[in-house]
């Protein structure tokens, strides 16, 4: 883990690029509104930060996949002056990045912006308690994905997280929600952190954290419940290599210091 430590706004920018934007895929897979917005379109969005990170989002077959190597074909290229410039856009401010079309299709730009708005609606609902179970499950699914993809960014680029991960035992952690098809995993081998959604396919977990339901997971991910008491009350179950889950949770819990959802 030799990546450079980053400033607060650079870390936030990386969280937006590598944790929040990938949540568009979950949004497309799990909400009819998002599916309807995208329809059958195929295009790419490339986002570059001046002297910094770059991602390419490929919208195809109803999915949104992150690809950093694929050349941009039928797409739109956004240029941002600085990490802050992108952060302001992602936080909902009216921001004008540089835009370049490989083929002039402004409809794709509108689709992308509508999907971003929908993502914000799911991530920051006005009152989650009045929403139906499906909405709440999607909200938690998106948060879980952001937490696990954000984990890597913090572990690599934030000092306290990097220090903590070095003290964390190696292994594979699975966080899941009882009776729901909601899970995310992260593995740490002393050099790299990998994360993914769903159950890990390649290896059995070394620690399993199970939330009793989506509401408990939501509260836990948003630091709105007492995690130690919740374990004692069996609202959260933990088994296995607990220091691994502790180390990863420490980092996940730092994400809200950067990212206000």
């Amino acid at each position, binding site marked *: 883990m030799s990546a450079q430590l980053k400033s607060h706004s650079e870390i936030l920018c990386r969280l937006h690029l590598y944790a929040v934007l990938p949540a568009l895929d979950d949004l497309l897979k799990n909400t009819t509104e998002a599916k309807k917005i995208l329809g059958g379109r195929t295009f790419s969005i490339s986002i570059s930060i001046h002297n910094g990170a770059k991602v390419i989002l490929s919208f195809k077959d109803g999915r949104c996949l992150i690809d950093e190597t694929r050349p941009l074909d039928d797409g739109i290229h956004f240029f941002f002056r600085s990490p802050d410039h992108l952060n302001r856009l992602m936080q909902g401010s009216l921001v004008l990045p540089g835009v370049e079309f490989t083929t002039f299709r402004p409809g794709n730009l509108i689709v992308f912006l509508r999907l971003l708005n929908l993502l914000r609606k799911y991530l920051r609902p006005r009152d989650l308690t009045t929403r139906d179970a499906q909405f709440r499950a999607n909200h938690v699914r998106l948060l879980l994905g952001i937490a696990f993809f954000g984990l890597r960014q913090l572990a690599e680029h934030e000092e306290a997280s990097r220090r903590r991960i070095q003290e964390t035992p190696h292994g594979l952690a699975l966080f899941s929600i009882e009776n729901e098809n909601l899970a995310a995993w992260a593995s740490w081998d002393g050099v790299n952190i990998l994360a993914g959604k769903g159950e890990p396919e390649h290896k059995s977990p070394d620690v399993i954290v199970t939330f009793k339901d989506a509401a408990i997971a939501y509260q836990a991910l948003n630091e709105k419940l*007492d995690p130690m008491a919740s374990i004692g*009350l069996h609202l959260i179950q933990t088994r296995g290599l607990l220091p691994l889950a502790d180390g990863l949770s420490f980092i996940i819990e730092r994400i809200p210091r950067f990212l206000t959802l």
Partner: protein
Amino acid sequence: MELFRRASKVIPGGIYGHASPAAGLPNAFPYYAERAKGCKYWDVDGREYLDFMCGYGTISLGYGHPAVEEAAAKQREKGSIFNHPSALMPELAETLTELIEFADWAVFGKNGSDMTTWAVQVAREFTGRKKILKIQGAYHGVDPWCTPGSGGIIEEDVAHIHPFPWNDLEAFQTLVARYRGEVAALIITPFHHPSFGDSEMPEEDFFQQIEKVCRKEEILLILDDIRAGFRLALEGSHTYFGFEPDIACYCKALGNGYNISATLGREYLRVSATKVFLTGSYWNDAVSMAASLICLREMQSAKLPSHLEKLGRKLIKGIGNEALGHGFKMRFSGPPAMPFMRFADEKNFFQLQRFCALAATEGVFLHPHHNWFLSAAHTAIDIDHAIEAASRAFALLAKEQ
């Protein structure tokens, strides 16, 4: 569970620290204890447990030891806290400095952290240096410089704390060379006893080399004997491993359940010791000192270290054999008096947690994440009972697989 539900409304975490259900087995271990006697305790639901944690080491002679309780009761009648210390304070300091040969003076506190933090300050005062070396993953208490937790800790708290791996003399020497003239002390436990990991004994000559470098570089050697003190050797664990510290900190076994801790040091640190402010509302408590004096006498009379070692060996051998009989292989580490057990081929604790949960249902309290403790109250018969219960737990575990 109702009690815990009530607690969780008025106490953050419900129960915090090492006794938190989250640190043990929430589905299997009791949350609250009601009473204890000898080597057994009963939870609030009346379930009985043969105990191999001994209040996480604070019970050395057994719960409710008659002589200790009598001494404490007698002193309680006279009073526990006054405007002044009682005559027991110098008596206890004399007893300890006679017992622990390298030491010329003693001071008292209530918990391990009180003492390790104060010892580190004394080292900084004496040397005029900032840096403290410690072993990676070693536990020295809950103060900001050493807490294993992360809440409320700022970078500056640990800016001058430098860890290196246990038994890694080269890493130690590298740190000493890098910070030559800046290191006040090395704080170290007599053997490495991390949670969720094998205990590690010092390699041959490890402490002797450490001591040699410390003397040469004028680095104070602080022995954190909080957990192991009096269990490996009554004269201090350094005598068990053949080295001499400059300062040593004790707690756990010292009061047999009465809260007291102590730091002992060499003559040349006396003036520095007077310059590091040391006090606490209850630190002169005469009841704990009365209990401690008798506890020390009784530990000597029970030949505690050899008793613990003998029974520890019997326990390890017995559980190990029963495991083999059911197709499991166990790995024991650390000294037999304070063993840490895990399944030999398992690193993630699933099986061990299940085994300890089954053992708890069989009435034996074995911790899956922490080294175990025995006491003078444990007998060979108790060990036999524990082995039989472990055998039943292994049988159930084998059936589940």
